């Protein structure tokens, strides 16, 4: 194991994380827990579970930070952490909004017609 912690992320306001694996483990578990509250056939639950379990497996299998960043392929590990935090907040809001329900109201007949 390399054991070398990078000095800076290069991004303003984003500090280097000392224990990214632990942080990601906690966040992904919370997201998966929040997704359990949605119905099984909801598309959001299906796709997000797929995505999060894939990333979670990468985190569990790869212990080197740099190799993990390459495997996940979505920027630096600190950015991956902020993406996970956003996804957690989103999944909690989705349980309130329930967007998998059918359409609220159809648009009037010529609303989206262009040219008029």
């Amino acid at each position, binding site marked *: 194991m390399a054991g070398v912690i990078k000095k800076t992320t290069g991004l303003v306001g984003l500090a280097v994380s000392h224990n990214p694996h632990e942080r990601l483990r906690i966040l992904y578990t919370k997201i998966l827990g929040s997704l359990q509250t949605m119905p099984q056939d909801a598309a959001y639950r299906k796709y997000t579970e797929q995505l999060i379990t894939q990333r979670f497996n990468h985190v569990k299998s790869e212990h080197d930070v740099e190799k993990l960043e390459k495997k996940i392929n979505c920027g630096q590990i600190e950015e991956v952490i902020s993406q996970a935090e956003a996804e957690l907040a989103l999944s909690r809001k989705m349980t309130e909004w329930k967007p998998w329900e059918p359409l609220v109201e*159809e648009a*009037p007949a010529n609303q989206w017609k262009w040219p008029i």
Partner: protein
Amino acid sequence: MAASLVRFVRNGFGRSLNATVRPKDPVTHTQLSEFGEYIAEILPKYVQQVQVTCFNELELMIHPEGIIPVLTFLKDHTNAQFHNMTDLTAVDVPTRQYRFEIVYNLLSLRYNSRIRVKTYTDELSPLDSSVPVHQAADWYEREIWDMFGVFFANHPDLRRILTDYGFEGHPFRKDFPLSGYVEVRYDDEVKRVVAEPVELAQEFRKFDLNSPWEAFPAYHKRKSLHSEFLFGLLLASEDWLLPQ
């Protein structure tokens, strides 16, 4: 000069005459339409229509109740990450029942991708403000309020931004005249600027700029079968007008 002539002849007349036609990009088109289907599958409650324009731009038409959910989803979801709101405008189409069409343009730096979200409203129905999701929407919503009269609920500070302090009316509406209703001048007697009804030296002239030929024959609305038959005859006789 000689080299360009050689290139012209070698490429053939067909391709060089079509040099100004935008090349189609089917790969980007399919990528965008698949992403649009993905979003429509996740948010069926709010998404009414999804389309990809001929310029490869993804557009998402949503119900006005879904502004905050859809924008939050597009910002926070890992597969979307549209953190930038590049533009927020309104379009006035007075013939529609909901005359104002609000357009949000978003940009994802992570995936180098843009998306357009459209909603609708009329003069009196308020919309949810998107300021809690994107702070950039603040002044844009003030501008829409000032210019169109669309009210945004839960906006931190919704007041006029471009018009004069006592200005009445919403200038970007289609029924607001080009010269406005009021003009200002400095009055020496009262020693301040006064606003008076506008007086133009020349009355407004409207020019009919239509060309005698049809601009977009592919989009022509056929009213009845009889007119279609006659129109077909007309088109056949105009074959020589078609580009090579």
